[in-house]
């Protein structure tokens, strides 16, 4: 079937089998390999993308569900200033998730901060609960998120 959707701000059309998974479409058809393929069961979060602005695991998204949707992957998100803020905060806090889950964590932090400008510890844990990778620790995560939160606030305030 032919499916048209927005991918990282561009409109694209793919001709695929209806049940083909978005993660495979992204990696194989568009060579967006920064989005990782993990458990294919919605459990590990390595394939996290934003679907219409909300977190989604792309291994659980069949092509037929994409019609008219807007998909943002880490490649698209890394062109934004929000991305830069989060990345700098990770570095500053010494938070070093591995190359397999980092992109899912960055997108999760972004969504978390959109919802809660100053998230509580509980909100942080719950916001990142979708990333099953066990490479990182969590006290630096808390520090990284609070740095990212203040960076975002001050930049957005400055813009206003």
């Amino acid at each position, binding site marked *: 079937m032919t499916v048209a959707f927005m991918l990282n701000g561009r409109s694209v059309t793919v001709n695929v089998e209806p049940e083909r998974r978005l993660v495979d479409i992204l990696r194989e058809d568009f060579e967006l390999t920064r989005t990782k393929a993990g458990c294919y069961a919605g459990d590990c979060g390595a394939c*996290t993308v934003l679907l219409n602005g909300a*977190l*989604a*695991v792309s291994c*659980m998204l069949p092509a037929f569900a994409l019609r008219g949707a807007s998909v943002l992957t880490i490649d698209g998100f890394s062109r934004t200033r929000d991305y830069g803020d989060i990345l700098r905060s990770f570095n500053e806090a010494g938070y070093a998730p591995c190359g397999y889950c980092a992109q899912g964590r960055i997108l999760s932090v972004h969504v978390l901060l959109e919802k809660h400008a100053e998230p509580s510890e509980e909100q942080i844990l*719950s916001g990142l609960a979708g990333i099953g990778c066990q490479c990182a620790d969590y006290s630096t995560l808390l520090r990284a998120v609070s740095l990212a939160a203040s960076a975002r606030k001050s930049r957005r305030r400055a813009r206003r």
Partner: protein
Amino acid sequence: MGSAVPISRILDIGANVLPRVMHLALSELGTPAIRNRATLGGNICIRERRMSAFPVYLLLDIQLELKRAGTTRWIPLSRFAPGGGKIDLQRSEVLTRIRIPFAAWDFEVYRRINRETSDSADFLSFCGLARTEKNVIQDIRIAYGTAGSEVIRSREIENELVGRKLPIGKRELGPIMEILDAALALAADALTSFKRERIRSLLGWFLAELPDR
């Protein structure tokens, strides 16, 4: 509420509008990404097993709208999912809307054992609702999800408790536990002794907490 509304949208309505137990139970389902895709209707229509939030749906007495070409019917969840892993969804029928009656409860609790694993794993969930007036139980509802084919609820215990004065004494508790044991013996799904004992202590705990309200 539309049956295909994602869980995350329902949660966004907020704990003030949703019954508190419903909010609690839904916020413990899956991960954020899963909650963005999973729907209340989907959670209800799983055939083989009753998911962890099911006791909450049941006690809140939610009503379902089922549609197919030309006809519409409304039925309560207890009739829709009568037990034994069955659901009353007829050929080409679709669950379209879900109505959550709003009733004021003085005391609402929801607890789930095995929270760190996903909903498809083994779990035990508990929902208790109560309304009291001058330390007398006016209405009380208790149900358990056991990761099996049906939710455990004993109307007999609920009837037995209505009208009792709080706190419930040790001597009163004995016969109530006997009714519970009898209900557990009749349960459709085999229960481990762990689950049986947790079910008993959750009831004991719930009743002991009531006077503090």
